[in-house]
């Protein structure tokens, strides 16, 4: 393929440009919506800063400092102006640039979400395949039950119960937080991923403690995405298993294991990738409740804290990031579809 092909109506570059434009428009729409919702929310950030006993001159002073005395649209354009320069403003919550805050809190969520997706996809995919293969049998019912349970139990409650059983009674895992509190701050912050940072520093005690704290929230979170992933896997597999090539393969005398994994499974890989990518995206978005239960200092905690405070700069920054993650994941999975399955190139 040469460069001129890319510029064809259906060329890669054209399509990419079109998609990127969609991304920008989507994010811009998201920003306007969030901004308006933020401004009509009955939360007064000024009061949160000055406290309820402050006198009026202090209140007025902070009100003006935050630029709240300006018209709504002026505020929005000021925000957009700085956004163009990569400045998301300062957060009320921390007094620091929102970008810095997000860079600080996001790795904690990445660590949690990555571990969770390993658990969720690692268990969800094989279970889904198994359920499809044994459709209507006991194994299928068990998987469907697990999936239903994962879907319908409130994650907050499961988190509390998990802490009670595995931490308080059985003493198997660490409690709330990312690490035993006595180890707090002993490792230099290089990547923000505590497992990697502690390993780099050779602090194996901290590493073990961090892993210990990660297991429970990640498993619970993973269980939640497992439900979704196993259901989707099951239905994708069922669609494949009724195809003629599977019957042919079986007639040829291939083992059931090979029929399932080498034939059917290979054909659902791309679809699965989308499912897993989207599941990962929503995990990254901040497993808000789990982060609250486990006092996990991640993105979800940051976002909820900012919302409660009416800290709009921080909220907009977070919304922008979440939007970006979803749009990017969508884009990537669409591109992969087209790469693996040229029929979708329309």
């Amino acid at each position, binding site marked *: 393929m040469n460069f001129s092909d890319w510029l064809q109506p259906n060329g890669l570059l054209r399509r990419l440009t079109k998609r990127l434009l969609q991304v920008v428009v989507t994010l811009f729409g998201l920003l306007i919506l969030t901004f308006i919702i933020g401004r009509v929310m009955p939360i007064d950030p000024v009061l949160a800063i000055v406290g309820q*006993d402050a006198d009026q001159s202090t209140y007025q002073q902070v009100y003006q400092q935050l630029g709240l005395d300006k018209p709504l649209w002026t505020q929005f354009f000021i925000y957009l102006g700085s956004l163009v320069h990569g400045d998301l403003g300062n957060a009320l919550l921390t007094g620091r640039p929102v970008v810095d805050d997000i860079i600080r809190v996001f790795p904690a969520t990445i660590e949690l979400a990555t571990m969770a997706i390993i658990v969720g996809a690692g268990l969800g995919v094989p279970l889904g395949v198994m359920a499809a293969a044994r459709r209507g049998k006991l194994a299928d019912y068990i998987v469907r039950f697990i999936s239903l349970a994962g879907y319908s139990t409130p994650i907050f409650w499961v988190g509390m119960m998990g802490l009670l059983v595995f931490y308080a009674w059985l003493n198997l895992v660490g409690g709330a937080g990312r690490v035993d509190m006595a180890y707090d701050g002993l490792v230099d912050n290089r990547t923000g991923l505590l497992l990697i940072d502690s390993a780099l520093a050779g602090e194996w005690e901290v590493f073990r403690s961090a892993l210990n704290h990660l297991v429970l929230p990640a498993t619970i979170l993973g269980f939640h995405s497992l439900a979704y992933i196993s259901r989707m896997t099951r239905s994708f597999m069922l669609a494949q298993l009724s195809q003629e090539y599977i019957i042919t393969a079986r007639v040829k005398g291939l083992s059931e294991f090979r029929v399932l994994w080498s034939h059917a499974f290979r054909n659902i890989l791309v679809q699965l990738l989308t499912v897993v990518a989207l599941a990962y995206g929503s995990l990254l978005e901040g497993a808000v409740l789990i982060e609250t239960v486990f006092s996990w200092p991640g993105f979800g905690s940051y976002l909820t804290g900012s919302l409660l405070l009416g800290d709009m700069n921080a909220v907009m920054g977070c919304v922008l990031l979440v939007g970006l993650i979803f749009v990017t994941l969508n884009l990537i999975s669409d591109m992969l579809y087209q790469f693996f399955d040229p029929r979708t190139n329309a």
Partner: protein
Amino acid sequence: MKIKWTLRTLCLSLLLATALPTTVGAKTPNDQLIVGMNMNNLLSLDPAAMTGNDAVSIIVNLYDSLVELDPTNLSNVLPGAAKSWEISEDGKLITFHLQEGAKFHSGNPLTAEDFAWSMKRLLNLNMAQATTWKSYGFTADNVEKMIRATDPLTIEIELPKPTDPKLVIYSLATLGSGSILDRATVMQHEKNGDWGNGWLTTNEAGSGPFKLDVWQAKDVLRMSRNDDYWRDDAKVKRVIFRHMTESQALRLMIEKGDIDIATGMSVPDINALKSDPQIVIDDVSKGTIYYVAMSLKEPHFANPKVREAVRSLIDYDGINKTIMPGYGLYHQRPIQKGMSATLPDPGYKLDVARAKTLLAEAGYPDGFTTTLRVLADPPFINIATSVQSTLAQAGINAKIMSGTGNQVYGAMRDRQFDMLVGRGGGGVDPHPHSSLRSIAYNPDNSDAAKLTNFQGWRTSFYDQQLNELIDQALVEKDQEKQKQMYIEVQNRYDALYPAILPISQMVDSVVVRKDIIDYIPHPSSTTHLRSVYKQR
């Protein structure tokens, strides 16, 4: 065949699940103190800009103040950075003499000039903590003249308007805003004329027993021992404050010994811990008061008979017995409990028949409809529910509007509410004026005055004679006479059918592991951690 692959699949799944490790959580180390608390309200560590008790509890361990209050006897003022002080004959000048050899964490010497500058900064910044000092008459314009260093170790505070100098000393000891800042260090970090406020939000420039290592909002705050402290060094090496919002998680962790001290835990969780022999629960009496407030801007409540009726429509006994345990103690006076001037409770109680008569006399024999604003959290919402049902018995139909602090107190600050269940009042300065200023005093009732820091103003409750009594009592030097005047204030308040009806005085519970020694939670949240240690 089928069994074989099923097994293989299951093995794969199990392998993934069990690839995760298991070990046992550790007890907290002996030389570290670990505190679990909700840091939602901790926004700034700048002593001039901070709000709320949580910030004070941290600030007092990073900074020195001139004086401290004895947590076991609140009227006993102890030396801090000032080793002695005296009040002039006419009560208008307080002179403090500083300790020698005190140093900031930067190594700079702590001087009287630093204190004078810290107060100047406070009033010039005009952030949250300036409010009290402005009420004493200090302004950005006069502060330099009124608070001055006469030599490196002597500070003079001249009171801009007549007030009780004891109250000013108590404020220096309890507010945290009287912290002494290292002027040179702060000014190195000044940006755009912000007096170093941006930097001090997450940093410190103090001389206290601990130095701040790091503070990450809603995550963790760590401080380590200042080995160069002018007093005895703190006994623990590190203190870690960990942000935890879930009371149940806090409870599990303190039970297991993974944290040493927990604050802000919910009452049911505290009750569940009461039988644990490893845990001590300290109930700390606070100065603030739970109350039912009415706005006199609302025509019904402008009528004193209606206010009197409402006063008879609250089930004080029931609320204090069933809702308040763990939150507050029975109290019906505008001045906090335990002070020599505080009168015994007047004995208001639920009396529906009397209320109905009063309402009929006021011209509302069938009652009326109104709204009742309240925070959505316990115990506020529970109090409101009780009040709603007893009001209804006399025909007052109060619609509950629950919301966040902004929605409830914001409306109150704007004088746009009918009724409200809230909490407010004095700090812990052991002085009757502290609560009266907040709840009963209202020097100017006009909307334009915008005295939003006075809850009396917020309710539009105004009585000139009451104001004068409060003003006079504050400057009375004869202690016995002053006490009599405060008694008179309470009697007058009572007779006026006030807009704010106290129900209960706040208590706060701190949960502490038994092996933590010398941790004495201070009613004003100025809990000093320098002498705390572990005995195992």
